[in-house]
């Protein structure tokens, strides 16, 4: 039968019925169209993100913290990966035996472990951080469900306590907490990157999608430190502190020509690799943060000022008889009456009266400006946290007695680092060199504080001070000419000078004909009988200077003759 002959066509159905169907279909079509536009046009980004999250993963690209190296490229601080073990308490299913094994591996008491694992209200507990990879592997082998591991970095310091104060340390999150680690945190810290990848069923990365943020590893930091000199300085300081039963001590070695700090050690110290039971005393970087009254080591500054202003010449005679000087209601003393001394001898024999008389001949402003120029009262800008600026009171409030005592280092406080910096002036033709902990490519520009002639004159006086007629014959070194000054000061306790507590110090440089190194030694409260800077601090200086000059291969500038020490009892005691 043909279609045209179909009886159905004879029925003549009403037209609205076919229209209705047409409209219904058209309506459905438009709804679908609208939905398609909505999904693919308007809502596309959201849906694509949703889809991507089903197969793509963002991976973190770890970055390592920069190494710290010494000037010869020896590693002083390195980060290496360790594991941290954590648990989801709810998921942990552990048998008694396994718990015992786990506790043994993690090196913690079983009860403590049990307590952490039963803290079901928490989703995440660290069981142990910074675990050695080998141990972590054995923990993984136990295969306890709910116990996981993640990568972390831990910083190791091969030098241990020798470099502790310079380097500082980082916390468990590898963020600097002290010393160089803190000061140069932004340079050392790496920045972890990220990448978006497609992972297959087995967890393999099959494709990189989207942009990759590259990880930026921390930059390595090359310090000015010379680890040979550092370890020599540390061991000599330690020996002296033990011998003199001192409370603490510090030593700083700097290169005169560049201002680079070659060694900086403090005692007591700590092992940065094992920081349980740390005390504040151990942590203190005394050379940088502690201020002390320097005592006689400041006399050369006063004398240099007087020479520079033309007030005196090295041979001007100062009358120090009868060995004391009364200013207002106070009296200052010399250790023993010296009579008439030349300016040179005032330094050599360390006369308080002499330096006070010279100081009182100058305006307070001039002295204040000199202290400021030579860096007292301002931070040394090494970059260390908590650098002490020292204390120099404004000159307008100085009374004459204060001006007199400041001339020999009382009533003014400085840090050991500032003292080293100040002595670069005498060692480097009147130029004050900025100190640096970082190895420099070229020496920085110094600041002319006194004339070259003055610096040479003071250098000569300092050379006399370490010869047998001076206060520090024990600072002499065979083969090298040495220049330096002792300091011995009573310690301040509760606002008064304690009569049985001293700070012994020595600052000097060598070889005197062409200075290369300046070293400052400070020993706090030597209590084994000897306390003069010339007896306690000077020998440390001599040992460290001799070893350092030898290791740097500095040409000797004196004949190789045994050094002369005055007979026992005949040593010249400096005035305190």
């Amino acid at each position: 039968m043909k279609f045209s002959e179909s009886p159905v066509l004879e029925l003549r159905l009403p037209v609205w019925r076919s229209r209705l169907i047409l409209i219904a279909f058209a309506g459905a079509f438009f709804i679908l169209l609208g939905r398609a536009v909505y999904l693919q046009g308007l809502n596309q980004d959201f849906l694509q993100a949703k889809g991507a999250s089903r197969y793509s993963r963002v991976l973190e690209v770890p970055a390592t913290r920069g190494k710290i190296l010494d000037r010869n490229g020896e590693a002083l601080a390195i980060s290496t990966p360790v594991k941290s073990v954590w648990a989801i308490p709810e998921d942990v299913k552990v048998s008694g035996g396994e718990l015992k094994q786990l506790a043994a591996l993690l090196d913690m008491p079983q009860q403590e472990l049990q307590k952490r694992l039963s803290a079901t209200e928490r989703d995440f507990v660290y069981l142990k951080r910074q675990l050695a990879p080998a141990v972590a592997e054995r923990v993984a082998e136990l295969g306890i469900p709910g116990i996981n591991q993640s990568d972390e970095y831990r910083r190791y310091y091969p030098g241990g306590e020798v470099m502790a104060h310079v380097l500082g340390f980082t916390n468990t999150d590898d963020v600097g907490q002290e010393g160089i680690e803190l000061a140069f945190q932004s340079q050392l810290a790496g920045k972890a990157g990220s990448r978006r990848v497609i992972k297959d069923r087995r967890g393999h990365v099959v494709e990189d999608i989207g942009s990759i943020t590259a990880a930026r590893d921390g930059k390595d930091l090359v310090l000015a430190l010379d680890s040979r000199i550092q370890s020599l300085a540390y061991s000599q300081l330690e020996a002296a502190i033990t011998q003199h039963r001192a409370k603490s001590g510090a030593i700083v070695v700097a290169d005169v020509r560049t201002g680079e700090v070659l060694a900086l050690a403090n005692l007591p110290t700590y092992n940065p690799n094992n920081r349980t039971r740390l005390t504040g005393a151990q942590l203190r970087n005394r050379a940088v943060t502690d201020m002390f009254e320097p005592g006689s080591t400041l006399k050369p500054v006063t004398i240099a000022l007087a020479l520079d202003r033309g007030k005196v010449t090295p041979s001007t005679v100062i009358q120090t008889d009868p060995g004391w000087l009364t200013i207002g209601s106070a009296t200052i003393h010399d250790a023993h009456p010296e009579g008439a001394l030349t300016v040179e001898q005032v330094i050599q024999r360390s006369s308080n009266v002499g330096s006070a008389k010279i100081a009182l001949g100058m305006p307070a402003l001039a002295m204040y400006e000199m202290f400021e120029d030579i860096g007292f009262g301002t931070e040394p800008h090494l970059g260390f946290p908590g650098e002490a600026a020292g204390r120099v009171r404004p000159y307008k409030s100085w009374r004459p007695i204060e001006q007199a005592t400041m001339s020999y280092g009382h009533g003014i406080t400085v840090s050991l680092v500032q003292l080293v910096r100040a002595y670069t002036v005498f060692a480097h033709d009147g130029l004050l060199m900025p100190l640096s902990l970082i190895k420099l490519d070229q020496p920085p520009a110094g600041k002319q504080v006194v004339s070259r002639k003055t610096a040479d004159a003071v250098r000569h006086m300092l050379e006399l001070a370490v010869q047998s007629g001076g206060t520090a014959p024990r600072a002499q070194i065979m083969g090298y000419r040495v220049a330096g000054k002792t300091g011995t000061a009573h310690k301040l306790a509760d606002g008064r000078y304690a009569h049985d507590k001293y700070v012994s110090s020595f600052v000097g440089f060598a070889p005197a004909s062409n200075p290369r190194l300046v070293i400052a030694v400070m020993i706090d409260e030597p209590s084994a009988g000897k306390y003069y800077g010339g007896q306690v601090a000077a020998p440390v200086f001599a040992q460290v200077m001799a070893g350092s000059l030898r290791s740097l291969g500095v040409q000797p500038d004196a004949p190789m003759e045994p050094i002369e020490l005055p007979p026992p009892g005949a040593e010249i005691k400096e005035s305190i």
Partner: protein
Amino acid sequence: MARLNFLLLAILALCALGLVTSQHKARKLVAAHEREQTRARQIDVEWGQLQLEQSTWALHQRIERLARERLHMAMPEQQRVQIVQPGATP
């Protein structure tokens, strides 16, 4: 006409197969690259650990102690030391 269509269909099928194989190869290469990168990181870590070990063994205090105790060495006296400057005539 039909013959041309069959030809195009065959080409299309070949292209599709090519796409699949090259995608597979690309993924394999990515996985290999990934492995090598992991290895590079591991080697880097190992290098750091070796450096650490070297620094620990080469500690000055340790070397000095060994030289003194095991090898019975001593620092030469200053008189016996001569410093030679490069370029200087003896």
